[in-house]
C-alpha cells in the first residue's frame, strides 16, 4: 500500500505527510502572516521576505505567480495560503474562481446553484 493518500480524488490534493514535508517553508512563511507587521514586511520587500523563510525555487516561483494551484503543488496548505491571499485582498471565492478557471461571478453562481 502506498503512503500517498491523494491518488484517487479528482481535483484534490490531500495535505498528507508528503505535502507537509514539501511545504514546510512556504506554510511557515504564510503562518507568519498572522502578524500585521509581517504582512507589511512581505509587501515592502517580497524577495527578501521569501528568502528569509527559505522558500524553495518552486515555492518562490509559485508565490510570484500568485497561482494557488502552483502553491499547492509546492506543498502549500490552503488554510495557510489563504493568509497569503488575504494580503492581496483575495477571499476564498476569489481563489476558488482562480483554481477552477472561472470568473468570480460564475464561481459564486455555482455555489448558489449547489443549494438548489
Amino acid at each position: 500500500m502506498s503512503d500517498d493518500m491523494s491518488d484517487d480524488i479528482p481535483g484534490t490534493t490531500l495535505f498528507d505527510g508528503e505535502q507537509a514535508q514539501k511545504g514546510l517553508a512556504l506554510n511557515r512563511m504564510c503562518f507568519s502572516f498572522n502578524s500585521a507587521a509581517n504582512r507589511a514586511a512581505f509587501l515592502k520587500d517580497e524577495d527578501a521576505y521569501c528568502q528569509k523563510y527559505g522558500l524553495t525555487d518552486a515555492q518562490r516561483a509559485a508565490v510570484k505567480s500568485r497561482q494557488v494551484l502552483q502553491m499547492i503543488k509546492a506543498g502549500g496548505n490552503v488554510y495557510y495560503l489563504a493568509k497569503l491571499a488575504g494580503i492581496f485582498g483575495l477571499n476564498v471565492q476569489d481563489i476558488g474562481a482562480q483554481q477552477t478557471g472561472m470568473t468570480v461571478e460564475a464561481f459564486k453562481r455555482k455555489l448558489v446553484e449547489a443549494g438548489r
Partner: protein
Amino acid sequence: MARIIGGIGTTHVPSIGKAIAEKKHADPYWKPFFSGFGYVHGWLARERPDTMVIFYNDHGLNFFLDKLPTFAVGAAPEYRNEDEGWGIPVSRAVAGDPDFSWHLINGLVADEFDVTMCQEMLVDHAVTIPMALMWPDESWPVKVVPIEINTVQHPLPSLNRCLALGRSVGRAIESYQRDLKVLVVGTGGLSHQLDGERAGFINREFDELCMDRLIDQPEALTRYAIPEFVELAGAQGVEFLNWMAMRGALTGSVRQLHRNYHIPISNTAAATVVMENGPGAGLRAA
C-alpha cells in the same frame, strides 16, 4: 453532579465574523443563515448552561504544522483570540475552567486518549464565531473547555475515533462532582472545499445524510474512511469530525430540536443543529 443538557453543531466560516461586525444579519445573502439562530437563542436562554465543551479545529493560529497534535485539550483560565491574518475582527477572550479541564483530561487519558494538554492556548474563529452566534449580545455566560481536533494535516483521526473521543468526554463530564449544566458544541463544516480544481464542491445530499444519521445512528457514519469522506464532503468537509465528537458526548437519548441548513455561506454548506440529551438509555460506550 454535572449534567449534559445537549449539543449544538454549527458552521464556523470566517466571513461570518465579518458579517456580524458589519451587522449584515438582515442582508438577503445572510438572513437565511442568521435566522436559523433564533431557536438557538431561545433554547440557550431556557437551558442556561454553565459550561461548554467545544470540539473544533485550529486553522493555523495556535498550532502550526511543526508540532501538530491530533487531539488537544485546553486547560487555561482564559483563551485569547488573535489576528488570524484573514481580515476578520479579533474577538474578545473566552473564559476557561481549568479544574473542569483537568477532570476531562484525567478521564480521557484514563480511557487511553493520550491528548496534548494546553495550559496556554489561543482559540481561533472556530471557537469565537460559534460563541458570537450563540450569544450575540456578547454576554458569553459560560466557561469553556476547548478540545481541538486535527482536521488539517493527514492522517486525520477516523470518524469512529472521534465518536469514541466524544463518548469518553461525555463519561468524564457526568463523573464531575460540581453541579454544572454542560453544553457540548461541535463546529465547522458541512460540505465544502477551498483548494484544488474541485474548489466549490458542495454535497447537499450527503450533508443531509450526515445530519440525519448523527441523531439516530452515528455509528453508521463510521463506515466512511477519511479519503472517502473527503470525496463526499469536500477537502474541508472533514471538519464534521468535530460534530462526531460532539454527538459522542451526548450520553442519553438524543432528539433533534432544531435544524437549519443553507447553501452557500462563503464556499460552504452552512448548518446549525440543536440536539437534546434526554434522560434514559442512550448509546452505550464502546
